[in-house]
């Protein structure tokens, strides 16, 4: 024992910076089983939350009320309260849908793909990002339903033997979407809960009050952490990761089919699936950083979510951001190279038409500003990173606006051209959905462990054994 400790201490300074010059610490020195469990568990178990939590949750809740108000009015009056028209029948609803579902990609990417790739740095952030995925997909799922016009018959999208003798048209990408998003939500929920079970058991055992013991006891299902339990659990968890990996790549591909299977210039493109997936992971990581940077500060989690995590996420953003930039270039190139006058007109209209300034804002937010991430100083500076991530989040929303609106507003015949201007209800629904998302995040960090406790203990163990 004494030997391992001394080598650990001796190695610590050398380990703090890797040979490539990146911060490489997964866990601050001196953390042990009890300390990681206490740091994470006490956030949930202590009766009072910091003032900043109450302040943030109040703002989020106020936005949520706006969302309820906007949706209630929508259900009362119909989709006419939005700025949509013909030809721009897909307005903010679809922009928001694609934006939210993209944000929902980082969670499963971090949990599943990085697990299969043995990236141990995922441990401190996977739980929070999985929760983020669930909430983002919940927000996303709302928009196509609200956009239906008659949301109360949404179940017609599902295959069931109905009295009308009808079936969904399985050749339509819109029906694929129902299955893709539904499956993604369900699998993310399962994956998240599977990881939570051992941590709920920890909370059950550490809870001081009877009510908490019973609540966490029920949620933990009687988990005992026996060797048999762990063996089946690890097997199931790995299989879920294996299943979720192709799933996460497929969801945004299917979403992109909504566009690319259509014949509209600006949508009908084979680059859409990979370009959408890269964009989804890009915006997902940006949202993770926007959430995690304030949280690690407020809850003092710097020992668990270290600079290495921030740096790694920034690197993933840089890589996927370059893929997205490549997508932009290819779209313009293919429009020119196709020789198709409608494609060429669409591209010219997109960059220099009435919405041209939005296109250039997109280039600034999504392509230029993220180039700052080449600098290690930016990647390891939480404040700077927060603002770069914010720029990407806004940029990715603007990207979907450009794709949806500028492709539609100038239809094939000029007599059908029509501008799209969002109404106050469009904005209320957008910001309201941010409120829904933020409220769920605040409730989550209050009531459930936001970092995987058992996995953090495993990291402590592996460091003790010298395997890290």
């Amino acid at each position, binding site marked *: 024992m004494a030997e391992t400790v001394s080598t650990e201490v001796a190695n610590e300074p050398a380990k703090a910076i890797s040979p490539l010059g990146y911060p490489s610490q997964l866990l601050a020195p001196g953390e042990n*089983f*009890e300390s990681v*469990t206490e740091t994470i568990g006490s956030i949930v178990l202590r009766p009072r939350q910091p003032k900043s939590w109450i302040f943030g949750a109040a703002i989020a809740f106020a936005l949520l009320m706006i969302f309820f108000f906007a949706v209630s009015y929508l259900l009362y009056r119909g989709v006419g309260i939005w700025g949509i028209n013909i030809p721009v029948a897909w307005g903010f609803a679809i922009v928001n849908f694609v934006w939210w579902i993209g944000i929902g990609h980082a969670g499963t990417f971090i949990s599943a793909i990085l697990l299969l790739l043995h990236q141990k740095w995922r441990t401190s952030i996977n739980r929070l990002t999985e929760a983020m995925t669930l909430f983002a997909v919940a927000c996303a799922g709302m928009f196509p339903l609200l956009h239906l016009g008659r949301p109360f018959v949404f179940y017609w999208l599902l*295959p069931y033997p109905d009295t009308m*003798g*009808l*079936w*969904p*048209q*399985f*050749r339509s*990408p819109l*029906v*694929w979407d129902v*299955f893709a998003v*539904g*499956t993604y939500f*369900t*699998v993310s929920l*399962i*994956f998240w*809960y*599977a990881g939570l079970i*051992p941590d709920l*058991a*920890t909370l*059950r*055992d*550490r809870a001081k009050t009877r009510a908490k013991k019973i609540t966490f*006891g029920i949620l933990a*299902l*009687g*988990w*005992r*952490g*026996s*060797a*048999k*339990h*762990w*063996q*089946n*659990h*690890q*097997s*199931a968890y790995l*299989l*879920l990761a294996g*299943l*979720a990996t*192709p*799933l996460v790549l*497929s969801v945004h591909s*299917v979403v992109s089919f909504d566009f690319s299977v259509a014949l509209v210039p600006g949508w009908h493109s084979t680059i859409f699936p990979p370009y959408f997936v890269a964009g989804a992971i890009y915006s997902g990581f940006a949202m993770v950083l926007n959430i995690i940077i304030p949280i690690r500060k407020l809850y003092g989690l710097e020992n668990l979510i270290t600079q290495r995590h921030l740096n790694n996420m920034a690197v993933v953003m840089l890589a996927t951001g370059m893929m997205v930039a490549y997508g932009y270039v290819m779209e313009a190139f293919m429009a020119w190279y196709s020789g198709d006058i409608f494609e060429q007109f669409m591209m010219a209209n997109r960059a220099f038409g009435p919405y041209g300034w939005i296109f250039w804002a997109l280039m600034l937010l999504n392509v230029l500003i993220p180039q700052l991430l080449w600098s290690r100083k930016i990647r390891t500076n939480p404040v700077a990173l927060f603002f770069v991530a914010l720029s990407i989040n806004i940029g990715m929303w603007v990207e979907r606006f450009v794709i949806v609106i500028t492709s539609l507003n100038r239809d094939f015949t000029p007599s059908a051209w029509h501008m799209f201007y969002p109404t106050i209800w469009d904005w209320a629904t957008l910001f309201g959905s941010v409120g829904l998302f933020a409220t769920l995040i605040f409730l989550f960090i209050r009531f459930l462990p936001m970092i995987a406790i*058992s996995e953090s*203990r*495993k990291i402590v*163990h592996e460091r*003790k*054994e010298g395997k890290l």
Partner: protein
Amino acid sequence: MNVNENIYGLMAEFPGGKEILAAAKSAHEHGYRKMEAFTPFPIEGLSENLGQKKSFVSSIVLICGIGGGLGGYFMEWYANVISYPQNIGGRPLNVWPMFIPITFELTILSGALAAIIGMLALNKLPEPHHPVFNVPEFERASTDKFFLCIEADDQKFDLNATRKFLETLKPEKILEVEK
């Protein structure tokens, strides 16, 4: 045989992963079979050291995944070819490339549901109460302590002899688990 009716088994508490691995191995070598180890995080090789069989969650997932995929394709084929055929521009009714996305999604969905339900079923969860919870020290099993419990049902179990054997493993504590 010295067996107390009210005893579920004997439990030894260890401070770390290495110790529990060695203890499990030793207990298995000494002929104990009905036993279980409890750890705050998964420890590689512990199940093997206890002589437990491999998990067959993977077979359940494979079967259900294939079933879900075939079922999904069948549903699409039945709905769009048999029950409600629609001629759209003379395109074929059984248009398999368009049926792939939903077939794929349902494969994943069935596999994932099978993984969680299979895992819980094989672990016999939910099971709100279990005798090991009668030991107050067991609360630490989900934080930083590692337990080996030899059950009274074991052929070789003898209250005194098993206690002596556990002592040779140098645990921090030996605890009696009441039923």
